[in-house]
């Protein structure tokens, strides 16, 4: 069991090991759905929910089924199936009980099962040997970190619509990467001044 405090795990997940700008997990959505703040926040809400649920379920799956039966080699397959099933379940529930939320999340929900951030979070939980509380905290922190980065990126892209940008950079993926470069520098270094 890793003996990192809850606060350290939380700060790690949100800032120091931010999934999008430091660990490069879930980049497809980072450049794909950050054209405006509304879709970025919808996607982030769905990701927080699915990562937390996955961290919760995968901990029990790994500790009480895969480990006792010595099936560690099935970890990848088991986790991807759990995530896909979970996303499907979340989709059903949200569609049945929260139609407005379902309409706003719409196409983003099914996309989450192939988002590296979710699988990355549960695999990192196993690799870091986190216990139950730490696993769930890391899941929430990863989701929050994802949200912070997505919202900053979407806001910058939305606000900078009137700026002059060279044609070769454009408004698409290349532009997003230049913004990500600056964000990545600040996330990786600025928060090192906070002693954990």
């Amino acid at each position: 069991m890793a003996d990192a405090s809850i606060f350290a795990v939380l700060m790690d997940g949100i800032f120091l090991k931010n999934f999008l700008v430091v660990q490069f997990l879930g980049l497809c959505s980072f450049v794909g759905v950050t054209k405006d703040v509304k879709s970025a926040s919808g996607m982030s809400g769905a990701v927080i929910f699915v990562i937390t649920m996955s961290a919760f379920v995968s901990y029990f799956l790994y500790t009480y089924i895969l480990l006792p039966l010595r099936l560690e080699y099935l970890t990848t397959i088991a986790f991807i199936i759990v995530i896909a099933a979970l996303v499907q379940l979340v989709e059903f529930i949200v569609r049945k009980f929260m139609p407005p939320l379902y309409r706003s999340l719409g196409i983003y929900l099914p996309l989450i099962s192939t988002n590296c951030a979710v699988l990355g979070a549960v695999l990192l939980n196993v690799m870091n040997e986190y216990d139950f509380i730490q696993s769930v905290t890391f899941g929430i922190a990863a989701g929050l970190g994802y949200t912070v980065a997505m919202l900053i990126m979407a806001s910058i892209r939305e606000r900078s619509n009137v700026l002059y940008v060279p044609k070769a950079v454009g408004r698409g993926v290349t532009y997003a990467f230049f913004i990500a470069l600056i964000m990545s520098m600040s996330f990786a270094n600025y928060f090192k001044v906070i002693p954990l």
Partner: protein
Amino acid sequence: MGDNRNVASEFMRGITKDNPTFGLVLGLCPTLAVTTSVENGIGMAAGTIFVLVGSNLLVSVMRNEIPDSVRIPIELIVIATFVSIVDMVMEAFTPAIYAALGVYIPLIVVNCIVIGRAEAYALKNGVFYSLIDGLGVGTGFLLMLMLIGGIRELLGTGGIKLFGIQLVDFVSMLGYNPIGMMTLSPGAFLTIAVLMAIVNYNRILKALRGA
């Protein structure tokens, strides 16, 4: 198949038009995360090529049996199986590269290139061309990882080291002062952003000349 495709053009398409990084813009996570050196890039690409070819073959063989409604779960399980093989083989035979790549090896499962090719190509085409497509796109991925890895390693450490042999060494040759940032995460974003801008620039120039 009585159309005018040939093996060479199908293979080259994976490197030029359907290039994973600049053509399809897929699989960006591993492209940026593991390219701190050429060696890591080659290790990652080798794993991805194996998974890509294997899953393309298997999906193509089963393409007439797979019901449309459950095709994505089936593709995911096929891919996850091949990824588990790569994971175990690399852990056993190349422990140094395995340690450097860490969590990104099991994450080949969610690499959009693999599922993208299974979905867009292997489900609709014969076994042989699916194999060629897997090899072509895989080679394109390998070249991109080597290019980005090479730039970052050269600027970040001042030399290129491949499987224990020092190929280039600017530090002792030219007194070059390495930029440490290039091997960290901002360096990855900088490299890919500049490369993409160059590709776009060439595209614009080409379009202007054509018009």
